[in-house]
């Protein structure tokens, strides 16, 4: 079996208050350790903000700027420019935001930062809902999933943020998952080599919000990828698509069955989700093919 080859460099600390088994904390651990010491984090309200620290303690040993929910990318733009002015061009500025703060409330600031091609690394921890506030829906919540504000299941589909940001022609946007740490490590490393706006969307199965067992976050992430619901792929300069997984190896059904948020859905809805997934997958393959 493939070994994970990973060693902490002491940037993210134990004692943080993420839920037991939280794979967002795990993803933070991996990302921060690769980004390294010479970095500043910009954190809007979200689970990540809670994990990073409750004053006066910090889980991070790099500076973290807690900003407003609307303005992660704008704040990061400012921090980056300040660092440039101070003669520190190499310091990485890193946004650590949730999906609510990215797909919804922070979208305008992200859009304009991307349009200006600000030199920032924007990480979106996509747990498909407003989770630290008790689990309300966001525009990233997928169809069928129940949340506090869509108790019967969301009726509209998940927004495709990759397409939106690819349309901004950012140099790099990609998806990854905590079930694919080698993929995650490689993508963070790659992003660090690129100048301009880089966006990494990390699928985070939220244990409480999705209704997944404490030890099953990794499993859920892998099933999302294996079923093609959350494919691993990258888009460079808004046009070069690369799919990072060989194939889909299972239907969406076991993935849905693992989570309580889909407990209520009917066979027809499962089928509908399968059809949507198949179609999106075909489209993705087509795009990846067409460029060659």
């Amino acid at each position, binding site marked *: *079996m*493939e*070994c*994970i*080859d*990973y060693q*902490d460099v002491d940037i*993210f*600390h*134990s*004692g*943080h*208050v*993420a839920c*037991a*088994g*939280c*794979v*967002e*904390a*795990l993803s933070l*651990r991996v990302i921060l350790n690769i980004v390294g010491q010479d970095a500043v984090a910009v954190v809007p309200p979200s689970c990540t903000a809670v994990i990073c*620290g409750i*004053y*006066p*303690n*910090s*889980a991070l*040993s790099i500076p973290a700027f807690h900003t407003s929910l609307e303005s992660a990318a704008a704040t990061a733009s400012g921090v980056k420019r300040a660092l440039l002015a101070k003669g520190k061009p190499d310091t990485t500025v890193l946004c650590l935001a949730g999906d609510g703060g990215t797909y919804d409330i922070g979208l305008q600031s992200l859009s304009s930062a991307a349009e200006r091609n600000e030199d920032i690394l924007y990480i979106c921890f996509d747990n498909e809902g407003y989770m630290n506030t008790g689990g309300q829906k966001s525009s990233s919540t997928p169809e069928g999933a129940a949340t506090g504000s869509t108790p019967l299941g969301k009726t509209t589909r998940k927004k495709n943020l990759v397409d939106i940001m690819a349309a901004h022609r950012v140099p790099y946007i990609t998806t990854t998952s905590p079930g694919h*740490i080698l993929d995650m490590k490689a993508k963070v490393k790659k992003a660090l080599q690129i100048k301009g706006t880089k966006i990494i969307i990390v699928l985070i199965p939220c244990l409480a919000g999705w209704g997944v067992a*404490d*030890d*099953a*976050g*990794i*499993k859920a992430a*892998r099933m999302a990828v294996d079923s093609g619901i959350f494919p691993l792929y990258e888009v460079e300069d808004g046009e070069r698509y690369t799919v990072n997984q060989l194939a889909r190896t299972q239907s969406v059904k076991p993935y849905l069955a693992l989570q309580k948020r889909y407990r209520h859905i009917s066979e027809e809805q499962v089928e509908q989700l399968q059809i949507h997934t198949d179609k999106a997958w075909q489209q993705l393959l087509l795009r990846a093919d067409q460029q060659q």
Partner: protein
Amino acid sequence: MEPQASPLWTTRTTLDRKTGTWRDAIPDYRTLPSPCLGACPVNGHIADWIGHIRKQEYHAAWLVLMDNNPFPAIAGRICHHPCETACNRQYLDESISICALERFVGDMALAKDWSLPSSDLVKKEKVAVVGAGPAGLSAAYQLRRRGLQVTLFESQNQLGGLMRYGIPAYRLEKRVLDGEIQRILDLGVIVEHRPITTQQQLEQLQNSFDAIYLATGAARSKTLPVLDYAKPWVIDSVEFLATTNANKSHPTGQHLIVIGGGSAAMDVARTARRLGKSVTVLTLEPAGHLPAQHTEVEEALEEGIRFVSGAMLQQVNEQTDGLELTCIEVEFTAGYRKGEFTIKPKSGTAFTLKANAIVPSIGQDANYAIWGESFKAQGPILKTGSDWQTEKKGIFAGGDLASMERFVTHAVGMGKQAAAAIAHYLEGQSPTSDEKTVAAVSIDTINTYYYPQQDRIDQQKLPSRQRLQNFDEVQQPLQEVQADAEAIRCFSCGTCIYCDNCYAYCPDMAITKLEKGYAIKSDYCKGCGLCVAECPTGSIVMQKEYEEITQ
């Protein structure tokens, strides 16, 4: 005083907060028995030695094998490998080729002439072992390694028992047998080629030895009442195999009927085929339910042996052109215990077979009456306690003589157990009570995500046409690259492979890497169980720390 504004900057890390208080269970690293280990008659540490193959540490693999079994090259050829039936990998694709891997290591040891570290005679006690089949040799090996003086008494002029005189060369080359036995003798085991066949001879041994191990096997062929064994055309199967195994020819006719469906019957039939005979095997058991190993039956069919299954011999008529056997189809019902069955002839289904000679091969009984009345029987075998001690103090027994598990590796396992019991006995200790049995690692605790599907690698067989020309081995060994590739398939059930998954997947950085192994930081482990879920070998378990409160 003016109220102070709190500083903008955090002043300390979260290490202050002991989030370990959240949990109710903590991971615990354990080395657990794999299912293959539990099924293996010698309790070999299979996960361990396959792990060594994976790292190409073949000598280390061999040493692990040799701990429980001095015959890896032999077992790797003829063991009935119940380990593979138990193997967890079958739930993903197919079980591991454990037996072929064992042969690979055993053959390498012979080819490279690896020898065992010598063991000094640290004990003054002397043990006599009667019978140098797999049970006796295994006991002698383990006793000698414990520093005791061992003398083997064997009635035949060569050692090995049925491994030499029963199992034919096309399944077990004599060179291999000789090599693995010589290694035991090189440890300094004394051999005396004389039988112990009377009560008086046994008493003499009792006078000059501190303990005795009886392992004379079961050599008396069971008889069929419908056959007249005085006739020249009734051939004893043990004798038939022994003579051909000793390269002597045996006078038989051209058409042979072998009666029986076990390993011995297959060997008789296949040996006769190699001598140019045409062979029919008659079995009580219906096709697909023969007691012989599946591959043996398959290979026998490939070699042109005809099977008449689910039928019984009723009568033999001598005719001028040979024998006419009247047979009848039967309904066969397996009994509760191994080897027991009932049969009911189906009326109106009688038929006849033609032959020149008949070789009944329906099993053998132990003969312990030779040593006097005082040994008790337990069904058809010699009675022993759970420590393999007979009714007579200081006299132990094992192998076919004292068990119905009629397999080489069972004999080896029994010899090992008896050696431990004898050592205890000589130290004046009571036999160790059975260790608390730990359940084998189940497939549910192996995270199979880490193992992509991969076909099992089997040994190649000689083409059947070529096989009938001589007594060359049918099963061809694995090549080194094949062995390495097969070893990678093993889940290493219950044995840590230091892959670091547990360390890397902890969201709380609550696992520290040690020089060899890992430690849990109980201050920070929240008890989520992710490390356990992502372990590819089932080597960590969650241990509850608090009793659940029930009302």
